[in-house]
């Protein structure tokens, strides 16, 4: 079986291999696009750029609005509100104290 697979590999690779690669690229793009933590990271960067004076208030406002639209889009697609705002769901409180004692 292994031998047969190996033999047929050169023929099947161009098609399914390509599909595989394309799928991976698409997955990665989706991850980037639909991962709220990516948006949050970009938001942090935007804050820092504003504080450093690299961008002005107008540009900040415009780019923040784009990121917020993306966050809302992510929420709509995953149909999931953040747990903090889901007042009717059963929720549990998690209290964490991450601490690096010196």
């Amino acid at each position: 079986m292994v031998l047969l697979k190996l033999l047929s590999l050169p023929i099947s690779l161009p098609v399914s291999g390509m599909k595989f690669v394309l799928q991976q690229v698409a997955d990665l793009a989706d991850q980037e696009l639909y991962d709220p933590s990516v948006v949050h990271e970009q938001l942090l960067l935007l804050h820092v750029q504003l504080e450093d004076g690299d961008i002005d208030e107008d540009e900040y406002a415009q780019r923040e609005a784009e990121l917020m639209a993306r966050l809302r889009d992510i929420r709509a697609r995953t149909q999931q509100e953040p747990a903090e705002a889901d007042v009717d769901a059963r929720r549990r409180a998690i209290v964490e104290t991450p601490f690096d004692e010196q």
Partner: protein
Amino acid sequence: METTGTAVSPAPNPQTPTPEETGIYVYSIIECTEPCTFGKIGIGGRGDDVYTVHYKDLAAVVSRTPLVVYDPTRENALAHEHVNEVSIEEGFTPVPMSFGTLFRTEKDTVEFLEDTYDALRDVLVKMKDKLEFGLKVNWSREQVIAEVERDNEDIRRLKEEISKNQQSSTYFARMQLGRMTEQALADKSDAYVRDIYEHLREAAIASRSTKPIGDKMILNAAFLVQRDKADTFDQKVQEIAQRYEGVLSFRYTGPWPPYNFVKIRLQLERSAVV
């Protein structure tokens, strides 16, 4: 990281919230037995009163709000932070809630306090009279690269070689130069960061470093400081900033509630994995 408490909020309700409905936004938990108000500074821009909801000796600092998901915009984040700042000014040591925490009613909020009472008391005791200060340190990457290329013997020689033999200099040599420069930069940044921590260590109880943001930042840290040591910490920061004047720029903020040292967040029961 430790999980010290759990609480269950009311059973699911099939109704979906609409913007006309109101809820309770929770900013922080404080130790307080008497009703308090903090002004008309509630999140959402309607000028809602910020007040306290009590259970035993604990209180949640809250305001009324439409039941909406709050986007983490700067405006909203500043409103959330401002309430915490005011309660620090009033002498409280708030333990902050995650941004965007909502309950449907005051009764639900009290139930949360009741169910999480032990864990909340625990962190309030731990954080009593402790404040957070933030420190971000930037460098000028270009300036440091120029310095490294001047001061590092190996890098200087390799660079000269490459520029002398424009045509024949190999891809490999250029790659190596890049790698060596990166390494020298990382070493320099580590040395700066170590020195800064070393200088501030004594005046702080604890520190947490987060990933630097962007390519100019070499340090992004939060320090937990005893309230009565805040002046000493201030002074230490001024000293180290002076030592590196012209080389590093320091952005120092606070006092904040211990945002980076306590996290109280709500998790959906169905996705709870403990």
